[in-house]
């Protein structure tokens, strides 16, 4: 194909549109990822703040004793 056979107006303008198109596509993906990221972060935070299974008095005492003994032997 010779250079004169190429419709340069078409080639350049469609190329420009498509280059911008990549920004648009990845920009939309970025936006969606940011929104879903916030949703997941919110869900994770909610999960973390749920009260964990509380320890009994005996278990707390056992852990405290173990820590105390561990310190004493150092």
């Amino acid at each position, binding site marked *: *194909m*010779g*250079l004169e056979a*190429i419709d340069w107006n078409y*080639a*350049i303008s*469609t*190329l420009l549109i*498509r*280059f911008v*198109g*990549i*920004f648009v*596509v*990845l*920009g*939309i*993906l*970025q936006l*969606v*990822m*940011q929104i*879903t*990221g916030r949703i*997941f*972060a919110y*869900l*994770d935070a909610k999960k973390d703040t749920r009260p964990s299974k509380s320890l009994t008095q005996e278990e707390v005492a056992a852990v405290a004793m173990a820590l105390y003994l561990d310190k004493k032997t150092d």
Partner: protein
Amino acid sequence: MNWDMFIDLLLDILHTQTGLFSLHYKLVVMWGIGLFFIYLAVAKKYEPLLLLPIGFGIFIVNFPLTPLMGFDAHGKRELFNIFYHYGIEWEVIPCLIFLGLGAMTDFGPLIANPKTLVIGAGAQLGVFVTFIGVLLCGFTLKEAASVGIIGGADGPTTIYLTAKLAPHLLGPNALAAYSYMAMVPLIQPPIMRLLTSKKERKIIMKQLRPVSKLEKTFFPLIVTGLIALLIPAVTPLIGMFMLGNFMRESGVVDRLAGSAQGSLMNIVTIFLGISVGATMQAEKFLTAKPLLIFSFGLIDFAICTMGGILTVKIMNLFLKEKMNPLIGSAGVSAVPMAARVSQMVGQQEDPNNFLLMHAIGPNLAGVIGSASAAGMFIAMFG
């Protein structure tokens, strides 16, 4: 049988059943090219997984009368022609490679910092600039598109697009893409230093947030849905990429994910290398076009690197927390080599600056970006 008859018979055998009398200097040149790529793979360890079978493919198909890339007397395809036809022409191999790559990839750094997706788009600048340059050199629109995509630094995407638009350029395009990908540590650092100041290279980025398993599992579904909707032409590539990643992140099909990134990937890599190498026969390859393709491929890589860095610099004008522009060069894809180069150049300036994980984000965005660019070209000319 007399002596003359014996000599005639012997000569006839040598002429028709051996390659001795069909040797040509062009074939010898191609052996040299094949052996050069074998040398790069074996001695220099440049992309050996691909350059070794490609180099061997080039070497072996350029012996006369070898029944490898043509058709036999009954019109049946010969061995490498079968690999090429079903693997490349049917577009099976690039998609299977993407499946394996997806199963290998952890998108965590990209999910943690989605802003880096834009860098992957900016790093496609060279693809479009090269397209124009190649057109000016007399290539057709389809050929120009297939050469332009080399700068995306993504082998399977280059092969996929070239097989669709300009299959006769498959050998030089694939070879240029893989050669320059191997040379990223040589090509990129001077450009990175030229376009950034000392102060910019020292920017320390905030540590990435942890990404939950659930978020990683949803990511491939989101990308697939969006890309299929916006650029359907590239769904075979991105779809397989995301299927591989979904298998990995879902955690319920470890065997399948393991096969996709292990044995399957290795098998298709062998067929891919051989098929690409086998397309480079002397009469097709020794023309001016491959030389131009190699020259434009290098320019393409350089402009893509600049595009990524400049995109970060432009983004920094609007961002409160500045990004280190060195991660922009990783937007050319070439996973994970380009990200390692960002880390290396950053550490030369400040040994306590760890950019690797930050650069993986644009690196992965580059894969999606170059596949998107390929999709745009297929939609234009496919």
